[in-house]
């Protein structure tokens, strides 16, 4: 009389399940073919790499967001961290006259520190994740304007105290955003690939990743199983902050100046990439591969539509449609309720 419920073996995999699992891959392939037939220039390698380059920052930020989401949190501050990193990198080189290596170290440390502050607010003070990161988001958006009096940072700019900035962007720094490996692969794409690979390995193949997910799934169960849940949540935000500042460094090295409006849409794009990722392989959870694929999916769609002369102001609408579709695919659409 025990366990009749489980004895019946379920069919290996129905068509609907398979379809849902690979839906985003199929759609991506269909889009590539569609845009290619409509506009043959779409498929040449320069364009494809430019798509990847365009999405690299969003993907890197999205990986950070999905790590915090996997641990049951949510980092809303990634966009502001990236934007502040652009300003910080510019300030370090233009005003403080640091070289590329020092700037890198400083900005990454700043990102990790902001992540630590987020984490401490959440874990020690007990502020809910969304509210804590929302407030640091505001804080940073304002803070980044103060050292320069609200102006963008360029070589030779006038400082608030009346002197002229003596430094300039280190040419070595600009290689990251503007250089290409073997004259084909942009460095940001390589950075994205390395980040994705390392994060994927961390989250899917190590016990630390397992515990991140366990905390997100059931924090009490993880705690009772002996996991130091607070330390893990703290680390999730440190990782997210560091990755966001890495994204900011890429933006800074591409635009070559401290633009106050840099990174305006980064947060929403990164969150969208993470959420679209839920549908990839029908995982129904944040995961690194899905996030990167989600970012690429949106990038391909926007690039193709632009080539077909869709006006720029439809971009957010298109992103929204993709997000709604992906979430409906993840959470509903003919799925049996558990």
């Amino acid at each position, binding site marked *: 009389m025990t366990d009749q419920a489980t004895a019946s073996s379920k069919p290996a995999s129905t068509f609907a399940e398979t379809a849902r699992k690979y839906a985003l891959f199929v759609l991506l392939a269909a889009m590539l073919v569609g845009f290619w037939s409509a506009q043959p220039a779409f498929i040449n390698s320069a364009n494809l790499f430019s798509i990847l380059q365009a999405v690299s920052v969003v993907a890197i930020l999205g990986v950070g967001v999905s790590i915090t989401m996997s641990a049951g949190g949510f980092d809303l501050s990634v966009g502001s961290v990236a934007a502040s990193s652009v300003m910080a990198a510019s300030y370090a080189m233009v005003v403080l006259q640091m070289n590329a290596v020092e700037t890198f170290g400083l900005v990454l440390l700043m990102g990790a520190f902001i992540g630590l502050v987020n984490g401490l607010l959440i874990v020690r003070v007990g502020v809910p994740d969304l509210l804590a990161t929302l407030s640091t988001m505001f804080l940073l958006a304002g803070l980044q304007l103060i050292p320069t009096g609200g102006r963008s940072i360029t070589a030779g700019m006038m400082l608030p105290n009346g002197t002229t900035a003596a430094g300039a962007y280190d040419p070595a720094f600009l290689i990251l955003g503007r250089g290409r490996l073997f004259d084909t692969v942009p460095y940001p794409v390589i950075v994205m690939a390395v980040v994705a690979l390392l994060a994927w390995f961390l989250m899917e193949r190590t016990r630390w990743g397992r515990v991140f997910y366990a905390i997100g*799934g059931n924090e009490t169960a993880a705690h009772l199983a002996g996991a130091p849940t607070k330390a893990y949540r703290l680390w999730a935000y440190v990782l997210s902050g560091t990755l966001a500042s890495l994204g900011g460094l890429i933006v800074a090295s591409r635009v070559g100046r401290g633009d106050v409006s840099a990174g305006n849409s980064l947060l929403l794009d990164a969150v969208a990439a993470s959420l679209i990722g839920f549908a990839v392989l029908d995982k129904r*959870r944040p995961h690194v591969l899905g996030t990167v694929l989600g970012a690429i999916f949106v990038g391909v769609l926007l690039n193709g539509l632009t080539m077909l002369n869709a006006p720029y102001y439809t971009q957010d609408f298109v992103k929204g449609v993709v997000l709604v579709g992906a979430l409906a695919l993840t959470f509903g659409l003919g799925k049996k309720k558990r």
Partner: protein
Amino acid sequence: MSTTPSPAKIAVSVSGLEKSFGPTRALAGADLVVEAGEIVALMGANGAGKSTLVKILSGSISADAGTILLNGKTVSFASPGEAQAAGIATVHQATDQAGAAGLTVAENLTLNELCGTGSFFVSPRSTRKRAAEIAALIDLDLPLDRDFIDLRPAERQLIAIARAVASKASVLILDEPTSSLSSTEAERLFSVLRRLKASGIAILYISHRTGDLAAIADRAVVLRGGKVVASFAKPIDFSAAIAAMIGRTLDANAHEGSLSTAPILASVRDARLIPGARPFDLNLRSGEVVAITGTLGSGKSRLLRALFGLETLTEGSFTLDGKPWLSNGPARSIENGVFMVAEDRWASSLLPPEIPGASIAGTIALPHLPRWFPLGILRETRERLVAADAIGRLGIKARSPDDTLDQLSGGNQQKVVLARWQAAPCRLLLLDEPFQGVDVGARADLIAAIRNSQSGSATLIATSDTEEALEVADRILVMRDHSLYEADGSHESLAAVIGSVESAETRADGTGQTP
């Protein structure tokens, strides 16, 4: 002893009520009659069908078969609203659901009218006036401007009752109303109930506390296995009622009471679980399985949680292997071989199916990851090997170690949770309600697995089901009021100890002494 009420006085009667959830038969032909002006106590162990019966009467779910007669008319409810309109009011156990936080006492008292039948326009003055009328129905004396969230559980409960009375209910169902009340608050509730009874309302009172039932119930009806198995008129013989509740069909004592002489593995000295409780000692010998039984809220879980480092004792100390033992949390306990399976496995042990590591293999491995994979890199073959071994050893019905836990039945889920803690060398295994939602067959497997676990360890089980305790344990202790009492191993004496000590508690409450 059962009485046959005159048809004119019957407020509500149910007959042949049946309800199944999948393969589980929650109600198997239950019959129950409550007269107007009568308080009937509904007793039964966990899973006896009490809450299913209440849900059917209050319209939350509908029965598969059987009839409900309300004031002589056949009724069936499609929603809680219909039941309420027909005159059945239910006060649920969770007092935070008794009203809406953010609204005042007055607004909460008139909530039914605000939500439905009242006029469209409300003014604070009319609300207060109406609320005062409703409060007067049960002599409720609360400041009408107070926010619901600032009320104590007893006051919230009284608001829910006042609302029920105001809705002109003829039948009032109270589900564990005193579980969060102090004895003086409970006494106040009882006096309200007595007045309602005098006014002719039929009251169905569900409780685990025999002390409360002795104080107010006219009749006790015992549910077991979805059927009414016994009915007791006043004065209620609670030893017999508890014996009926937990069943006589007992093939235990399987484990003859030859007292273990093995070395003491863990001990509790002069422990006070909460301030004012009687201190107690406990010795656990190597290889021994000890069960603690007692009613809900008696402190069983608290003792287990204290041993595991989740709570602190008010006074007293633990030793483990002769050395003082004080854990600061699960990580430290697990390192030292003190394992705990907390009650409610979905809340305390298992992960939702979309999470990596929610498989049988991952569930078993979770606490052991740092020791199995010190370099951090997972080797799933190792996890699967342990899981495959557990599946064979415990007879877990699953297709593979990769099955997620939601695909398993309750009994098999519990086997996986037990297997998790048998996958590493154990000193002291603490099991809190390990047979919750487990069918009889799986329970036998679990008991065998618990009894055959590592001989060098001790097992301490908390269960409110005496039958389970008798089946699994070498030795049984009764916990009451956060203190342990000895009981000899027989079924009758155990029922007597639980029943009698609670009656004693009631007498103490009656004279106004709070322990």
